[in-house]
C-alpha cells in the first residue's frame, strides 16, 4: 500500500500506519483514523440506538442501572464478574431491578468505581448521549432538569453542557 492511498482526513483521531513511501522504502506515517473519519456517524448511531432502547427498558423497570452501564460500556457478565471479584450468578442478580434493590450500597459503589461513573448516576438517567463532548463521571458546568419516570427508583435528568 502506498502512503497516499492511506491518507484519511480525521484530525481528532490520529493513527500510525506503515506504507510504501515515494522512494520505495516502507515506513511509518501519521494520518487520520479511517474508521473514525468515515464511519464515526455509524458508530454514534449504533450507540445512540442502544442507549435509547436500554433507557426505555430502564424506565419501565425491566432492567437495572447496572445492566444499562454494563451494556453501554461493552462489558459482558463474566467480564464484569471478574472485575467485581464475584460470581457471574451474583452479577446476573444485580442486573435485575429486584436484585438491584436488594444490593448493598458498598457493592453498588464497587460497580460505579469499575464503570467509572458517580454513584448518583445509578439512580438517574442523564440524557447527554447526543453531546459527544460530554464525559460520564467528570464534572462540567451544566444546567439540569429532572423528570419522574414510571419506575419509582429512577428519575430522568437532562443535562445541557455549558459551551461558554
Amino acid at each position, binding site marked *: 500500500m502506498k502512503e497516499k492511498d492511506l491518507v484519511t482526513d480525521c484530525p481528532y483521531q490520529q493513527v500510525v500506519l506503515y506504507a510504501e513511501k515515494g522512494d520505495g522504502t516502507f515506513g511509518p506515517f501519521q494520518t487520520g483514523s479511517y474508521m473514525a473519519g468515515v464511519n464515526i456517524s*455509524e458508530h454514534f448511531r449504533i450507540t445512540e440506538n442502544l442507549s435509547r432502547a436500554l433507557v426505555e427498558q430502564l424506565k419501565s423497570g425491566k432492567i437495572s442501572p447496572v445492566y444499562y452501564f454494563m451494556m453501554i460500556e461493552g462489558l459482558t457478565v463474566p467480564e464484569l464478574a471478574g472485575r467485581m471479584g464475584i460470581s457471574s450468578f451474583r452479577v446476573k442478580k444485580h442486573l435485575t431491578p429486584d436484585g438491584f434493590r436488594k444490593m448493598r450500597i458498598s457493592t453498588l459503589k464497587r460497580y460505579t468505581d469499575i464503570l467509572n461513573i458517580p454513584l448518583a448516576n445509578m439512580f438517574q438517567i442523564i440524557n447527554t448521549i447526543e453531546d459527544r463532548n460530554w464525559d460520564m463521571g467528570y464534572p462540567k458546568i451544566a444546567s439540569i432538569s429532572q423528570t419522574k419516570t414510571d419506575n419509582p427508583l429512577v428519575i430522568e435528568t437532562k443535562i445541557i453542557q455549558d459551551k461558554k
Partner: protein
Amino acid sequence: MSQIPFRHIMAAHCESGTVTALLNHHGMKITEPMVFGISSGIFFAYLKIPVMDFPMFAVRSMPGHVRTKFADRTGVKFISRRYRNPEKAERELNDLLDKNQPVAVQVDFFYMNYFPAWYRIHVNVHFVTVIGREGDRYFISDSYHPQIAEIDREALMKGRFAGGSMAPKGFMFYPVHIPEKIDLEKAIKDGIKGVGVKGIRRFADKIVDWPKYARDEDFLADKVFRITIFLEDQGTGGGGFRFLYASFLQEASKVLNNPRLDEMSKEMMKIGDGWRDVSLASAKAAKQRDFSRERLMEIGDLLRQRADVEESFFTRLGKELSNHKK
C-alpha cells in the same frame, strides 16, 4: 519532580511502540518494525468458547510476548513487576520516576481519560510509558496519542488495577541492560515464524454463523465493523500488522544482506493490501446492514485467500532463511 526528558512518538502498536520508545530512550537504535519482527509479533487466532457470547479474533500475539521474546532473542534485560498491593505498586512507580526512570505500565484502556469518551473501551492489555509526575498528575507517553498526555492518579490506578480477564495487576517494566553487541542476524532469523493460517481459515468458515450469535442488527453491525477496527485502526499499522511486518522484512534484508527478503517484503505489502480488502468489505457490509449468507461468504472467501497466500509466503520465507543459513 516533573517530566523526564523523553522523545514521544506515536507508534502502530502499543506494546512494540512502548518497548521501542524505552529502548531508544536508553540509547539503543532500533525501530518498531524490528522490535515487532524479532519478537514474532505477527499472529492470528479465532476464538469461540462457550463462555463467550460472541466469537472474537486476535491479530496480535499474547500481551507481554513482544517484550519477553525480544529480550530472549537480543539479550536485552527488562525488570518487570506485578503487584497484589496497589499502594506498593504506586510507591515503586513513584520511586522509579523520582530516579528519572521512565516506566511502561499495563492498563485498562477505558480509564485513559486523555482520549475522548466515545473512543475508550474496556481492554486490559494497553501499554503506556509513565514519564513523570507532578503532585497527583502523571505524564504519559501513549503510542496512540499525538502528544504527551496527563492523567490523574486515580484514573491511572484504576487502569493499573482493573480486574477481569488479563487483569494488569499493576504490571510494569523497564530495561536495565542493553548488550553492547547484539547478534541482530540471529535475532531476526529466530523471530521469523509462521502465522496462524488455521485460525484464518476457521474465521473464513465461521463468519457466516455470526448472525446467530447477534441479539439484533445493530449489535451485528458493530461486531462486523470491529473486523475493520481490529485490522486497521486498533494499533496494527494497517492491514492487520502486515504493513508493519513488510517494513520489518525490508529492514531485515539489509541486516542479513539478502535481496530476496527485500522482494518478499514487497510481497508482504501486497498481502497486507488483501487484508485491507477484508476490512473494506466488512465496513461496507456493516454500513449497508447486509448480513446475508452470500455477503458474509464473500468476506469468508477473502479471508480464505489470505490464508492461502500467507501459508505459501511463510513456507517460502522459512526456506529462504534455511538457505541463507547455509
